């Protein structure tokens, strides 16, 4: 990651090598944004990671890691209503969480500029689905911009604030993984200074959408979006480049693949590149369709632009061949690349490709059957010990609703403790549904960040409706999966201030949970197993929710701490005189720091990978795993 110091420098014209996420963080400084609120989510996470580093050094700037996305958009939306520039950031599914206030925000509008950054994830590199957030712009009638690369991402944030203030509407900046996680040269611009305070001017008949107000706002919003369309017709963010009979309409990262494909195929084509994709420049598109008998639409995921084109062709009675997803020429799933675009173009135009893709694909198939190397819980991860205990205590027979975080990796053998998952917070609520209709033991697990983000309403529901569920909260003191951001249980804020943390046990008791206990997953595993057994028994006997908080810091935090202090525990090793090669440790615990010594048939520990949690000591029936100087 680029250091905050570099992102903060007042050096107009300097060019830095930045991820689009870092470029967006820099744009916050250049646009004079007063407040940013977000909940982390890959591929958008580095925006918050950069801002939290920058925030204490920025003038009149406030940054927070909010409890979740709905909270974040409300905090940021209100700041913009009050009259300052604000931003909210989330991953695609995060906008689903924030959808309710998102739609209202378009009705009430804003007085200061507001930008909502949503990062979609075609190919689902780190997401539970590949939903196409562009539909939200259509549903809410909110203007939307889509950058193709990091430099454009920064420029578009600045343009989005101007647009937002001109129209008094929030503006959606929609990115995708291959924009967020591309690093490219980005020139720095001048820094702007936000105001320290503004006065909230009351205007309840605008900002309180009771039906009488909202009925006026909906037609007004449609008038605004018509104004936005006029902006879209004229903005330099929408432009045509190149010329030829063959037309291409594209947006976002696909624009790069289109240009590379045209270059590689040595064809002439006119490309309509849309930077403002809602509202689309209808007249401009109609003119483009009139001028090009064949038009290929290149966009990842849903046929959003393609549908607009077909609609406009019909509306204006234009005789044009529009090619895209409807004919299956381009896929509706997963991310694109230059090859996919080249293959679509060669198919449509009947030209030769300089690269023999069939041969390349054939060769690729010859090395498909390799041992996989999936992501795993780290060596020394506290989640592994907790799940081992849950599985042992319930003999693998309970139902295990899971949630979203590193711990979802427990789906893999041998832990296999993830049975159902919808979205963040669903562990508790799906447990309720299952427990109610099956009568089986249900042991749900949820991470600490997820607990505060979206676990609380589900827990209140479980208590009040007396659902007999066991809930184990995996408190590793951080939001590990997305890069170790703080949350309300950690005691650190986005401004890097120390505050009193919320205690999960207190929260559960406050919500009326009668059974709340705490365990350290690194105490001898038999004791952890006993704790889980006791929890399950209590829930069976009392037919109400019970909570066990399993608390130990993420192994990466512990390892970083050790590196900074230079104090390391004695190493763990397998005593070759005691190990009988039963492989119980490998088969049941599967810590990536352990391996089978192929020559001796005994287990062994890689000292370079071991994180000194010591849990494996209790897994070995022979007592062969020991700590100390060998």
């Amino acid at each position, binding site marked *: 990651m680029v250091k905050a110091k570099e992102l903060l420098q007042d050096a107009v014209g300097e060019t830095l090598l930045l991820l689009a996420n870092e470029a967006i963080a820099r744009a916050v400084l250049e646009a004079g944004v007063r407040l940013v609120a977000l909940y982390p989510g*890959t591929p958008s996470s580095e925006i918050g990671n950069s801002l939290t580093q920058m925030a204490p050094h920025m003038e009149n700037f406030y940054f927070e890691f909010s409890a979740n996305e709905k909270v974040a958009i409300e905090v940021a939306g209100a700041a913009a209503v009050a009259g300052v520039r604000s931003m909210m950031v989330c991953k695609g599914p995060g906008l689903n969480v924030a959808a309710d206030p998102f739609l209202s925000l378009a009705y009430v509008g804003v007085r200061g500029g507001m930008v909502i950054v949503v990062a979609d994830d075609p190919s689902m590199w780190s997401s539970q689905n590949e939903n196409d957030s562009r539909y939200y712009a259509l549903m809410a009638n909110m203007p939307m911009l889509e950058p193709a690369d990091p430099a454009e991402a920064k420029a578009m944030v600045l343009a989005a604030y101007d647009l937002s203030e001109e129209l008094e509407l929030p503006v959606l900046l929609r990115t995708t993984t*291959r924009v967020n996680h*591309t690093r490219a040269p980005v020139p720095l611009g001048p820094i702007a200074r936000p105001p320290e305070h503004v006065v909230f001017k009351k205007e309840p008949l605008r900002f309180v959408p009771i039906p009488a107000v909202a009925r006026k706002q909906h037609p007004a919003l449609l008038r605004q979006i018509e104004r936005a369309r006029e902006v879209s017709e004229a903005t330099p963010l929408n432009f045509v480049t190149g010329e030829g009979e063959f037309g291409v309409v594209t947006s976002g990262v696909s624009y790069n693949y289109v240009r590379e494909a045209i270059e590689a195929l040595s064809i002439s084509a006119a490309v309509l590149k849309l930077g403002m994709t809602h509202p689309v420049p209808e007249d401009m598109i109609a003119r483009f369709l009139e001028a090009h008998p064949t038009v290929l639409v290149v966009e990842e995921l849903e046929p959003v632009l393609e549908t607009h084109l077909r609609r406009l062709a019909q509306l204006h009675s234009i005789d044009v061949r529009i090619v895209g997803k409807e004919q299956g020429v381009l896929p509706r799933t997963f991310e694109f690349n230059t090859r996919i675009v080249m293959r679509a173009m060669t198919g449509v135009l009947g030209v030769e490709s300089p690269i023999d893709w069939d041969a*390349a694909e054939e060769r690729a198939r010859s090395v498909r059957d390799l041992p996989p190397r999936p992501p795993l819980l780290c060596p020394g991860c506290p989640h592994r010990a907790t799940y081992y205990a849950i599985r042992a205590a319930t003999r693998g027979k309970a139902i295990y609703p899971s949630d979203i975080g590193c711990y979802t990796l427990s789906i893999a053998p041998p832990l296999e403790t993830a049975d159902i998952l919808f979205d963040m917070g669903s562990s508790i609520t799906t447990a309720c549904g299952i427990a109610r209709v099956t009568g089986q033991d249900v042991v749900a697990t949820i991470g600490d960040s997820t607990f505060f983000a979206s676990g609380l309403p589900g827990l209140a529901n479980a208590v009040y409706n007396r659902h007999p569920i066991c809930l184990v909260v995996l408190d590793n003191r951080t939001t590990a999966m997305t890069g170790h951001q703080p949350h309300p249980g950690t005691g650190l804020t986005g401004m890097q201030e120390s505050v009193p943390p919320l205690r999960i046990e207190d929260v559960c008791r406050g919500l009326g949970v009668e059974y709340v206990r705490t365990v350290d997953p690194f105490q001898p595993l038999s004791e952890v197993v006993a704790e889980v057994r006791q929890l399950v028994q209590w829930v069976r006997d009392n037919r109400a929710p019970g909570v066990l908080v399993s608390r130990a810091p993420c192994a990466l935090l512990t390892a970083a701490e050790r590196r900074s202090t230079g104090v390391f525990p004695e190493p763990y090793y397998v005593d070759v005189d005691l190990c009988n090669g039963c492989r119980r440790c490998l088969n049941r615990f599967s810590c990536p720091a352990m391996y089978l010594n192929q020559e001796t048939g005994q287990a062994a520990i890689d000292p370079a990978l071991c994180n000194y949690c010591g849990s494996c000591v209790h897994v070995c029936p022979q007592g062969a795993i020991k700590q100390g100087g060998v």
Partner: protein
Amino acid sequence: MARTGITRNIVVTGVGGQGVLTLAQIMAQAALNESNNVRVGEIHGMAQRGGHVVSFVRIGDGALGPIVDIGTGDVIIGFEPLETLREISLVRPGGHVVMNTHVQYPVAVSMGHDRYPSEAEIDRLMSPFGVEVTKVDAMTLAQKAGSPRAVNMVMFGAVLGLGLLPFGVGTARAVVRSAFGGRYEAINSAALDLGVAAVSGGS
């Protein structure tokens, strides 16, 4: 102010924790410092946690998108034999593979559930791709430099030593020096030099 006429496509592949992203970033910075256009394609999140990690570095005016697709890579820098083989289809015929020979078993293999391909099998599987392969014992050299974590810089040195990048060792050294602080700077600089030396002067 060297401007490369053509686009150089480089793939860095390895295991989470080996410093794939760090090398990609340093390589791109060095290219930018010599006034080249660059793009780096990274994947964060689930891809880490000890899993397979791949990153793309594209240098030259033609580099617009962040992806190196199958059959279009000029160089693959592989930090581990199996992970090199996994991405071998990205390299174009006539391209170059620089591979660390140090093996890191995936969990299925270390648990005894799967089999790691032998060196001969790996060579055999790579041969249809028509690439030139240079093997480097980067782990041994990294340890010699002072840390097994410096494998990525040994590999960087080897690729530079083979003349596969559009910038020189001097530029690379300067970026490595400014990227690492304190003790790590010396280790990484030493690793870079050992990598360069490993590929120069015959077999």
